[in-house]
């Protein structure tokens, strides 16, 4: 899956670095297990971003967030939670440093759920130093 993610991310980087920032979300499913890799393509304007991932089965699912934001650059930190049936992730800098330009690995999340459906990005926002949203989008896939 990592190779697949990187191919998406690099493609997105080459196409989009001069344009909108992107959250690259790549989900894989096998039985009741789901794994998603999260990467971010930065244009160098954002200082922070947030993503909400909808989880099949909602609050009844079991999630592993140990690696949710484990791959971030040193300039930034992050936290993830599982609340109200969603994985909520935030990435930030306590001095509001810009995210470096290019492709940034964020982390992975895994979910165990008997419910049907795929992981999906329910909400994504990237913000600049003033806290205002910047042009951004979500790209990715969900394999079944």
């Amino acid at each position, binding site marked *: 899956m990592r190779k697949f993610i990187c191919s998406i991310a690099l493609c997105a980087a080459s196409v989009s670095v001069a344009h909108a920032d992107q959250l690259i979300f790549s989900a894989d499913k096998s039985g009741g297990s789901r794994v998603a890799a999260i990467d971010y393509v930065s244009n160098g304007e954002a200082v922070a971003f947030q993503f909400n991932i909808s989880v099949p089965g909602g609050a009844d699912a079991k999630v592993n967030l140990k690696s949710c934001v484990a791959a971030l650059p040193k300039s930034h930190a992050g936290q993830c939670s599982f609340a109200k049936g969603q994985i909520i992730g935030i990435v930030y800098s306590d001095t509001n440093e810009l995210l470096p330009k290019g492709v940034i690995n964020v982390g992975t999340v895994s979910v165990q759920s008997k419910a049907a459906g795929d992981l999906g990005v329910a909400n994504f926002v990237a913000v600049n130093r003033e*806290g205002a949203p910047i042009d951004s989008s979500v790209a990715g896939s969900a394999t079944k």
Partner: protein
Amino acid sequence: MNSKYLLGTAVAAALMFGAQAASACAINAWSSATGLTVADTGEPTADFKRYSGRCSLRVQNASTPRFVTDITPNDETSYRVRFYYFTGNISGAAADIFQARNGSGTNIIRVTHDGNQLSFSTTSGAAQTVTVVDNRYYSIELAWASGAGTGSLTGTVTGNSGGAVNASVAGTVNFANLANASDRITEARMGLISGAPTVAAAVFFDEFDSRRTQNPGRLCRGDVGGGVGGVTDGNINVSDRVVITNEILETAVALGAPDVTEDGLINVSDRVAVTNLILDGASCN
């Protein structure tokens, strides 16, 4: 603080102590000021503890009456009001911090603070109290109506929430079945109106909003950005964390309500608290 005008189908006042955005703080949105001038309003960069927006009203001496007055109400039979009160450190005597009066100057609603508790009273029934602590912001929400045995005054004091995901209710008051059909409200006063406590640490007032029929409600704690141009958007998300960080770093004064912990200070505690709100998926409270 920036609100003073009665809103709604009649009484509607969001009376502020400053204009929006970068404008200077002001007091002239109020009908009058007694013992106070524009110099008693200010921004956090001048050590004014505001709850929302850029400005608040500071009262640091109770030796003489110091209050603002709103004469927008017009013989109201229903009155809803919300304001934010920073308790400071007062002792020695109770001070009236809010009065809603009739045309003869009789208090229809009265709120006092003695340094330990807020006391609420109306034209009948024993006063009811809510305990508060020093140097914290609380919202005071009141809903009053006149009636022949159906009159009422209810109130909720919420604040000093710290890092809690849900704002902390300090207490409520409830005066029911009041025989107050002849009562009317024509004037509201806010400040250290009467009484002469020792003021060891100033009290502050912010975000007064009064209406005839609808409860103003609390402001969205922690919502300081996310909208175009830096305005609040009614959501709690990572943009609010960024804006609070900017105020901590003294890059910019946040609009909206950055004092998530409601202690009058904007610091790393508020950033932790807003992070808690985000990670809980909390809605405005």
